[in-house]
């Protein structure tokens, strides 16, 4: 999509506001031209005897200026409205689209870099949206100024308009280099922001390792690269910008040189000179802003491209799709889809699931899986054998390269949007908590009256922990949940699954950070309830013993499957996993 096509769609999002801005700018520039004409009259009639009229002209001058400022105040009120609405729309569309992408691949860059784009590139576009009506207004008002000057003295007027054409040509020539410099400058800024974000997220590790100095050096190196890129960009844009700014002086010089002859002849009055010099700043200002408008328009292409990189493969139209942004009025209702018969799970089947990570080539290959209603299925295997990958491919968090998934015998084409509550819910190994209240971390936006929160807290064996907190469920858990222990975080992730009461409950190594007693209670409650169908990654004996079915993975392939007893007979890998579990416990007991 071309830059103007993107922009036009954004205009169509708030057309009346946009054209109101255009109209307001035209009026205010009209009022800007009036004082110039008054000035000409003033200087031409000052030598005439009718002194009273002069004071009237001065009063008119004041009235024109008061009117202009009034109109501009209205404009400045409408501008942020437009700007913030547009940035809200872009951010909403981006966030919505990112949320809709397969989970493990949702972000094509680090979060720091994504934030950088969501902040700066979006701002750039939004600012342009209020800048373009200003340009339209200027273009119109100043062509009128051009006509007035041309009719005063066409020869002198032309010497003002001529540099204008030259500047536009210079802008186009320099534009490409500015775009490149701009891109480099933004990329280096993104790298620095990203490193900063990582540093702040890893604060505990850095402190413990005493690595502050080395990390600061790394950050400083990135900052210096950013500074050099910014300097390069500034030099390019500024050598263009100052040329336009200085055109006022150069132009005045031209006028004086050109007007010398006419003035000494008397055909060009002092009033005419005053008019030319009064209009000149506005004309050069216009030339300047039109030039930087072009440069900025080019930079805008970069901004749009960088935002589209956050949505690889998506249609460009999705970025600028119109839709409510709720800056006023009622916010939309908290969404809730209750479980119905239509969601009921009878059987879940997967055939030939295959996925390879692009950078390492590791992954899973040709894995078959079959779950019946109410079954407790365990996936086990060594580290790196592909357990988590299998869950992610099944749930659509990673795009499978081959294989089919059937829910109640029906082929699922888009598992990513299918495997969500109330059909399924998933607790990952890394719990992913938010700086919010305990309650909100479990509910994630669900309304408490729609769900059984105390039940979920109990199922996740969190009731004692909640009781111990001074503010109970309203305790804020800190950024990424740091105020909770590792085990508590994992149980919060489990509670998120329970509170959604899904047909299929998927847990990835749920008990890895839990102590023996808590873990015992958790498994006990889980087995006692057995309300849904379970798919669990674990290597705990308890889980393996209770499992209706076990999948043993090795190097991304299905090594063996069946009940524990059969597997211990038939599978060497299973025996090893089982033995290593036993041997550690055994050594303690001897």
């Amino acid at each position: 999509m071309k830059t103007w096509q993107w922009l036009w769609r954004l205009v169509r999002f708030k057309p009346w506001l946009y054209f109101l801005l255009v109209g307001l700018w035209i009026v205010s520039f009209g009022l800007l031209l009036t004082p110039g004409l008054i000035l000409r009259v003033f200087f031409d009639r000052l030598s005439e005897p009718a002194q009273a009229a002069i004071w009237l002209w001065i009063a008119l001058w004041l009235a024109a200026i008061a009117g202009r400022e009034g109109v501009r105040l209205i404009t400045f009120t409408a501008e942020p409205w437009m700007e913030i609405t547009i940035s809200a729309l872009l951010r909403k569309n981006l966030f919505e689209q990112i949320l809709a992408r397969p989970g493990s691949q949702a972000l094509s860059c680090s979060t720091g870099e994504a934030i950088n784009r969501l902040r700066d590139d979006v701002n750039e576009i939004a600012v342009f949206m209020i800048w373009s009506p200003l340009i339209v207004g200027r273009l119109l008002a100043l062509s009128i100024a051009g006509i007035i000057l041309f009719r005063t003295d066409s020869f002198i007027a032309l010497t003002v308009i001529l540099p204008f054409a030259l500047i536009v040509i210079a802008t186009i020539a320099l534009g490409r280099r500015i775009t490149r410099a701009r891109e480099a400058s933004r990329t280096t800024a993104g790298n620095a922001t990203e490193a900063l974000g990582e540093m702040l997220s890893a604060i505990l590790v850095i402190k413990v390792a005493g690595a502050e100095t080395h990390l600061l050096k790394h950050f400083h190196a990135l900052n210096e690269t950013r500074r050099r890129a910014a300097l390069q960009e500034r030099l390019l844009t500024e050598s263009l910008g100052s040329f336009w700014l200085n055109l006022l002086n150069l132009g005045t010089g031209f006028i004086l040189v050109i007007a010398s002859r006419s003035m000494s002849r008397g055909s060009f009055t002092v009033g005419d000179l005053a008019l030319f010099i009064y209009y000149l700043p506005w004309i050069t200002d216009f030339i300047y802003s039109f030039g930087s408008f072009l440069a900025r328009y080019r930079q805008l292409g970069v901004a749009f491209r960088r935002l589209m990189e956050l949505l690889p493969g998506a249609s460009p139209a999705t970025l600028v799709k119109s839709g409510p942004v709720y800056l006023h009025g009622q916010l939309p209702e908290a969404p809730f889809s209750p479980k119905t018969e239509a969601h009921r799970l009878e059987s879940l089947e997967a055939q030939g699931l295959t996925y390879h990570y692009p950078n390492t080539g590791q992954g899973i290959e040709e894995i078959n899986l079959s779950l019946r209603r109410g079954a407790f299925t365990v996936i086990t295997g060594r580290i790196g054998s592909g357990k988590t990958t299998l869950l992610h491919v099944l749930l659509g968090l990673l795009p499978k390269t081959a294989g089919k998934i059937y829910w109640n015998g029906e082929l699922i084409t888009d598992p990513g949007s299918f495997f969500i509550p109330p059909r399924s819910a998933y607790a990952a190994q890394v719990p992913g908590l938010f700086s919010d209240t305990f309650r909100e971390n479990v509910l994630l936006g669900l309304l408490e009256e729609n769900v059984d929160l105390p039940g979920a807290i109990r199922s996740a064996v969190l009731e004692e922990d909640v009781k111990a907190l001074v503010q109970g469920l309203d305790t804020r858990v800190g950024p990424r949940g740091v105020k909770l222990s590792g085990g508590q975080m994992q149980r919060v992730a489990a509670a998120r699954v329970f509170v959604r009461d899904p047909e299929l409950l998927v847990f990835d190594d749920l008990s890895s950070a839990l102590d023996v007693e808590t873990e015992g209670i958790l498994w006990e409650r889980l087995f006692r309830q057995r309300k849904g169908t379970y798919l669990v990654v674990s290597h705990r004996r308890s889980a393996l013993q209770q499992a209706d079915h076990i999948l043993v993975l090795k190097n991304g392939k299905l090594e063996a499957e069946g009940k524990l007893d059969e597997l211990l007979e038939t599978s060497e890998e299973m025996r090893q996993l089982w033995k290593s579990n036993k041997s550690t416990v055994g050594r303690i007991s001897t």
Partner: protein
Amino acid sequence: MSTPLKPYWNWLTHYLQPQWPQVGLLTVLIFSNLGLQLVNPLILRYFIDTAISGKALPMLITTALVFLGMALLSQGALVSEAYLGELIGGTAANRLRIDLALHCLTLDLSFHHAHTPGELIERLDGDVGALSNFFSRFVIYVLGNLLLLIGILAVLTHEDWRLGLGLTGYSLVVLLVLNGLRHTAVPAWTTTREAQADLFGFLEERLFSLQVIRTNGAGASMLRRLYSLMRRVFQSEQKAQVMNALVINTTSFLFGLGSALGLGLGAFFFYTGRATLGTVYMIFYYIQLLSTPLRQITDQVQDFQQVHANLNRIQELYQVQRAIQDGPGAALPAEASAITFQDVSFSYNAGDAVLRHLSFHVPPGKVLGILGRTGSGKTTLARLLFRLYDPNQGNILIGEVDIRAARLADLRQHIGMVTQEVQLFNATVRDNLTFFDPAIPDEQILQVISEVGLQTWYRTLPNGLDTKLATGGVGLSAGQAQLLAFARVFLRNPRLIILDEASSRLDPATEQLIERAVDRLLQDRTGLIIAHHLATIQRADEILILEDGQLGEYGDRRTLMVDPLSHFYRLLQTGLGEFLV
């Protein structure tokens, strides 16, 4: 310098001093440019009066050419100004960024728990970026423009004292009004920046945990939160912008008023025969010119209103004191040493004790296994040893040395810890392992990689140690990431080892892989193993069981293991059954 401007002055001198030659050159450039502006109207008057007298065309043309020459001179000055300004501002901003980042890194954990990375990014990146302009331009523009203002008023006074008096009065009124408006928008801008920091903090956390949102079907409600956060930005920024607009409009109107005054005074002097037409035009032109310094001062004030808010928040950040102070530098033992806790009590928030009167002693070279329910204080105990927090009461000794007496850097060099959370950086494998320390040779890194059992993984890397690891560790399983964390500790070769739930993510087969390596790590070192799983403390010589932050049980592992009355014995029974069904 008056008191409210004092902090700005301190900051300027501190951050601009190292660049004084550049600052000096920039000042010279800006001043010569302003000088050119002061002379221009005089040339214009001469031109007009000569033209009206209807003689000497060559003289007219020469005058016009002088004007043009000056325009060309200022062209070069403008480009150099911008370049130097960016150079100075950028360098100063980078110094400030590093100072602030260092400050943030040394702040206590409790601070970092209260502020999201997104929020701090907004401070260190957004606020500092805005300050960069302030560094390079503010004082030079304000000073330069003040001089231009005084220069113009002096020329006009020289022309006629009444003219000088009238316009000095006018300038004072304008400056007073502008000064009165100066602070009006600051609170609104502060609120705006806070709302923005909240918005981006929210987005950063959500983007970090997209899987959670997706698999729990929370997308729609997260969008709803986004709407409400954007609405707050809208409301505060709208208010701030309108207040800003009021300043701009008032200023513009005052300039129009000034021009009217100039025209009136000009007409009066012309009618009373004290001025030529050229002089009337010159008075008008000077008044137009007056608007430049007044306007630029206003512009800077506008920037200043934002910068004021930026600086306030940065200073606020600077004023956050760390509770943990560096020790005077007592030497820690070079060999494995004893750990002693003497009556240690600690609470994160007053009244909510996590550890209570805890005393124990681990002899040199021994390994202590620490057990306890979630939240019993195990992790806290390790954090105290690192001085991530200081105890409210009691002492912790390494060997004979109170850890508060040692330098923090020495202390943390002395201890190595593997935690459950493994943080990866978007950097090479090498930098991820060495924490960006270039002094560690590759051979040593490779050796450690094979020691922890990562060689199979290492062989899959396309560029060896130079392979980039992405944040979040795409293509790296949680277990592999855990092994990486082991490798990091191996590389630092500490004297005291803490394994905090170290093997929790490892499946039994992989766990065996690194057992030998851990054994070697614990050889000739004192160790603390904090684990929820009995299997992982099999190496312990002694056992400590924490119950609600108190010493529940302490003793030799082998003794406790066979004592049917011990809690440890009971735990072993549960552990053998693995769960309580």
